[in-house]
């Protein structure tokens, strides 16, 4: 017996919601392949552990990392494995709702829905991530008021204004928390002469990264490989320099929020002042980011209680009310 599914196909994390059950899967969007044969060796947590640590014949990739589908074949295989793991087969044929970055092209959308159908879905439909995020963040999007969500993921940042169940203004950029990791990697290499992997850079970001000065900041020891000697080496990073290192990325994210505010009709933009904007997505957890956005926009920012799960919970709501909400699927409107 098939239970319908909602999938948050994030650039960093994939979550699956099963109708009537709740979240049944939550893991990194990573796949490890044998470079020679192309066989899948691992997915999810297991593949994530391999990033930056594989021998030459294995490659661990994030097929959606840039918020675009760069490799259709790998993405398709990831979707198929994912559906298999939650029990989908040609015989069960559930309905599937998938959240994708709103910036993906028509061709990429088709690739995702086709992959889900080929993997056994009876029907596959897409919804925009910020729309799902707004439902998951429990915003009153059924009312004629301006609801604003900012979803900062690994490879994308999407800001949307939603009213009466529809998107009024949308601003999506292919910049996100992965770019912060990359900026830290580049900085440590340039200024301290050591090479660190992307997972170490992510740990630095979570440990001491910030978008605005915050109380109680600490230094951190970072271990990597000395570029001159090739030997392991430890350096100390302070929060100021990390803030400096990631400034370009942070300001690009804030600029996209400001562009979305500017696109909103005036009647709705009044609402933001009283209702605030809601921050979701793992990237939104960066220290001081909510404060930074508030400081630059003069609009209050509220953090969702479930930043990492909001999108899949919202999509789960759509799968629970499939018939009533099918008008919200991408392609159904406009």
């Amino acid at each position: 017996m098939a239970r319908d599914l909602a999938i948050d196909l994030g650039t960093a994390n994939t979550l699956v919601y099963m109708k009537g059950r709740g979240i049944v899967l939550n893991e990194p969007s990573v796949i490890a392949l044998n470079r020679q044969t192309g066989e899948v060796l691992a997915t999810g947590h297991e593949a994530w552990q391999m990033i930056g640590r594989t021998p030459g014949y294995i490659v661990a990739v994030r097929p959606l990392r840039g918020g675009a589908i760069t490799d259709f074949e790998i993405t398709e295989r990831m979707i198929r494995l994912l559906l298999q793991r939650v029990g989908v087969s040609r015989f069960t044929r559930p309905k599937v709702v998938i959240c994708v970055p709103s910036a993906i092209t028509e061709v990429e959308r088709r690739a995702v829905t086709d992959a889900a159908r080929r993997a056994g879905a009876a029907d596959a439909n897409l919804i925009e991530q910020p729309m799902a995020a707004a439902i998951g963040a429990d915003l009153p999007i059924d009312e004629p008021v301006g609801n604003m969500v900012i979803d900062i993921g690994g490879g994308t940042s999407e800001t949307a204004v939603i009213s009466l169940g529809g998107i009024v203004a949308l601003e999506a950029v292919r910049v996100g928390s992965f770019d912060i990791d990359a900026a830290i990697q580049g900085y440590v290499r340039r200024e301290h002469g050591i090479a660190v992997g992307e997972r170490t850079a992510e740990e630095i970001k979570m440990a001491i990264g910030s978008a605005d000065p915050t109380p109680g900041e600490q230094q951190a020891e970072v271990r990597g490989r000395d570029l001159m000697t090739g030997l392991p080496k430890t350096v100390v990073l302070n929060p100021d320099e990390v803030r400096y290192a990631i400034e370009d990325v942070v300001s690009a994210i804030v600029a996209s929020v400001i562009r979305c505010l500017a696109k909103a009709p005036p009647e709705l933009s009044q609402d933001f002042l009283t209702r605030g904007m809601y921050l979701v997505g793992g990237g939104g957890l960066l220290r001081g980011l909510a404060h930074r956005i508030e400081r630059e926009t003069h609009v209050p920012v509220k953090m969702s209680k479930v930043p990492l799960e909001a999108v899949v919970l919202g999509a789960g709501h759509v799968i629970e009310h499939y018939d009533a909400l099918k008008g919200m699927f991408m392609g159904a409107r406009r």
Partner: protein
Amino acid sequence: MNVAILVAIAVVLILAIVVLARRSRPDAVSDFHRQINALSAESRRPVVDQVHKFEEQTDQPVEPDQPEDAERPDGS
């Protein structure tokens, strides 16, 4: 007599066609209301309940994304 039966059949057929046409024509107003109702605070409540469940769960340390300390030095 026969004519009456034919007329009755014709009337039934016409009624059936009218009803079917009504049903298959998308009624935008009621669809819209159905959609808005499905997004209301009341129908969102199960989602919110899930959120609360999460808050309770995350009181215990369930951090799958947190690698062990020993893994810190990334030799790449």
